[in-house]
């Protein structure tokens, strides 16, 4: 165990680093902006990092130094790139790197660079999963790995991150990449989204991931295909019945109708289950989102403009007063432009080929 003094001076009295002249930070002028009270430990590690970076040194000691800096400043935008190059140049054990990343990611959950780095390492371990052979990769420890076990490790690590925060944006983004890179589309991913939604029906990230799994595969028709659409609509309706005031599945349902170019009126009866305005004893509403969708259904139909207005008024005055100004704005819109639901069909919107854009 090093004592405290050694802890603070890791490099300058270490013979291994004796050849390095640390570059002290030059904050120009008497009035630097956003000056930070650096700890001695951080200032020293950064001074050595600047020197080895300027020399572009790629050695094992640099791996230790970059790790040290990252653990203090994980948002350093070049140290990760530098470390990746050093890892590859020194043929370091990339599985060990992943293990270290597991700890670091748990510590810095909001950091983006960690996930980009992880993607880089996993791609290096398995550049082309389709040929199921990392054997074509360069010779380094970890070459010839078992793709299935790598995938299992990655998905289980991701799942453990979701236990900490089920809505972590970076982790869901990484999960999407795993699905794309390893072609996991039909390997239990849909069931994974179902389980995530079952855990928390209001987890919008899980709903978004489901949209990706169903619609994101290149060349896939997604919900434009009738069988898929029916399955998704049925699933979504089940979830809405469980929690009718949950925005996520209503957005998902709207998304399906838009993408499949279906008239919204196809779900009119379903909406009425949650917002029946026809009862003589008064309106029976228990989902503002149903009312919202009904307003759109009625708005595109000139004959029912008054009904659309009634939905918007109920939202404004009674069922969604937090957005009263918004519903007022919609009422004004309705007066100005007949037939202007916010989703009056935009068929061309759906001709976009989204998958072709993904090239990570």
């Amino acid at each position, binding site marked *: 165990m090093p004592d405290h003094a050694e802890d603070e001076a890791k490099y300058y009295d270490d013979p291994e680093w004796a050849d390095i002249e640390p570059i002290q*930070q030059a904050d120009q002028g008497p009035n630097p902006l956003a000056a930070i009270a650096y700890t001695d430990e951080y200032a020293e590690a950064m001074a050595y990092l600047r020197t080895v970076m300027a020399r572009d040194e790629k050695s094992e000691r640099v791996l230790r130094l970059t790790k040290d800096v990252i653990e203090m400043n994980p948002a350093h935008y070049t140290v990760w790139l530098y470390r990746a190059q050093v890892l590859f140049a020194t043929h370091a054990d990339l599985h060990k790197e992943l293990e270290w990343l597991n700890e670091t990611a748990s510590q810095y959950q909001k950091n983006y660079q960690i996930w*980009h780095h992880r993607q880089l390492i996993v791609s290096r371990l398995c550049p082309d999963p389709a040929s199921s052979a990392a054997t074509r990769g360069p010779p380094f420890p970890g070459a010839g790995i078992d793709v299935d076990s790598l995938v299992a490790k990655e998905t289980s690590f991701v799942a453990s991150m979701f236990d900490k925060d089920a809505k972590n*944006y970076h982790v869901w983004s990484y999960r999407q990449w795993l699905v794309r890179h390893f072609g996991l589309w039909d390997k239990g991913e849909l069931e994974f989204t179902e389980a995530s939604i079952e855990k928390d029906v209001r987890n919008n990230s899980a709903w978004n991931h489901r949209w990706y799994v169903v619609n994101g595969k290149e060349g896939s028709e997604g919900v434009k295909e009738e069988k898929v659409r029916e399955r998704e609509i049925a699933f979504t309706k089940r979830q809405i019945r469980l929690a009718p005031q949950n925005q996520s599945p209503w957005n998902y349902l709207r998304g399906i109708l838009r993408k499949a170019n279906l008239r919204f009126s196809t779900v009119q009866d379903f909406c009425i289950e949650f917002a029946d305005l026809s009862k003589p004893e008064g309106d029976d509403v228990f989902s503002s989102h149903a009312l919202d969708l009904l307003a759109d259904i009625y708005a595109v139909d000139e004959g029912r403009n008054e009904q659309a207005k009634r939905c918007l008024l109920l939202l404004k005055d009674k069922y969604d007063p937090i957005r009263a100004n918004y519903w*007022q704005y919609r009422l004004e819109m309705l007066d*100005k432009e007949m037939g202007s639901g916010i989703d009056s069909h935009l068929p061309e919107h759906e001709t976009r080929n989204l998958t072709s854009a993904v090239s990570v």
Partner: protein
Amino acid sequence: MSCTYSSASVLSSPDTPPGLDKKRHTRYWLRCLRTHLPSAYIPNDSNRMTLAFFTISALDLLSSLVPNTTPEERAAYIDWIYSCQIPSGGFRASPSHDLSAVKDGSAQWDPANVPATYFALATLLILGDDLNRVRRKETLKWLRCMQRDDGSFGETLVNGKIEGGMDTRFGYCATCVRYILRGKREGPDPTSEEQDTDVDALVECLRKAETYDGGMSEMPFHEAHAGFTYCAIAALHFIDRFPWPIRSQPSEGQRAFNKMPLRKEGIVSTTSSEQQGGIKTRGLTSPDLTIHWLASRLTATISSEDEEDTYADETDTPETCHDAHSFVHTANFPTSMGETSEKSRPTSHFALDWVGFNGRCNKVADTCYAFWVGAGLTLMNASRVIHPTPVRRYLLEQTAHIVGGFGKLPGDPPDVYHSYLGLAALSLLETAAQAAHESPREGRDKPVEERELKALDACMCVSIEAKSRLYAIWQRWGVHDGKDWDGGG
């Protein structure tokens, strides 16, 4: 105040939210300016230019910069920013990355950074610098190298490779740099002779990041997020590719442009016709749905405890779903437990005294989204869809801190990021409130001394006063042709 108010009655109601304690916030920011930020900021050491921008711009919004600093100090701040300029164009994000002192060393690990370049230029404008020392030609050249084939921008260029995420934050910062240095006009820049970035490709890239629910994400298929949505909307403004004002009765032709399909589908003719002044693809395929998505970010779930209530619950009650507090359908409980819990709930409604914004669907409110969403709506010419008073009260009574500044959630200690965006949001709310009471332009034009905070430019996120200094700079550079100018009060 009943929660079943109508917007008209609320807008004219006399409920007056607390005032902003300008002295306290000024003290917070002067501390950030004059003393070292605590070591807790070490994980932000690589974003010092961003922190610098927040500090200087916050003091500017508070009208506290000039009264509390000497011309010499401001000149020194300007010098510090220029010390971060890279000779080959752009700025580095922190002096801790500076390798320029090494004579024979390699500069590849000390690259210019796209967000840092935007923050540096914006801070220089606020400090009243004339941008004379900016390596304009080099920066424009470098900016082109930062754009990928798919239209997106990266963060840094290392060894000829564009690094950093593909997300809209970099697109936003890049278009702002382009705007500051050469205005909105497309094509080769006549004064520097530098080629333009690929504006069409960026528009396509932004359109692809639209999500099924009307928001925008980091890249195709990622979850809609208010920060990325703002960045995309603002970027479209900087490149003059925002849809025609959707509520100003656009002609049929303009409507068609707004909904124009992507070039790749082969329906719209390619760049050649665009260069002839013809059709240009515009961003946002469904502006109305985007406004719907932004308005849906309003939430009364403002603390983590509120959020926990909504976790894994079997059905909706006023307690589990704070955004739907005015009704509950009692006949629909699937279990007796749910029914019991419903019976024991208090009969009063959640008051809508404090209303915040979340960044994603079903998340807790957070100070910074009052800016990301509020500014997004402002840029969509739809700031009237929110009622400013409860949002203002949320910021001033819930997330403002006793020592000045704002935290992320109620009770959180202040940090530079949330403290700046809290002020920026308040400035926009002030403008919106004035616009609601008075004529649409008066809020914006109101003299500084009558406003609490200086009016903010929602696109550049600096005071309109600071942005307006660009006018003279453009004239000097010869890039201003009158047509580009869209701000400056």
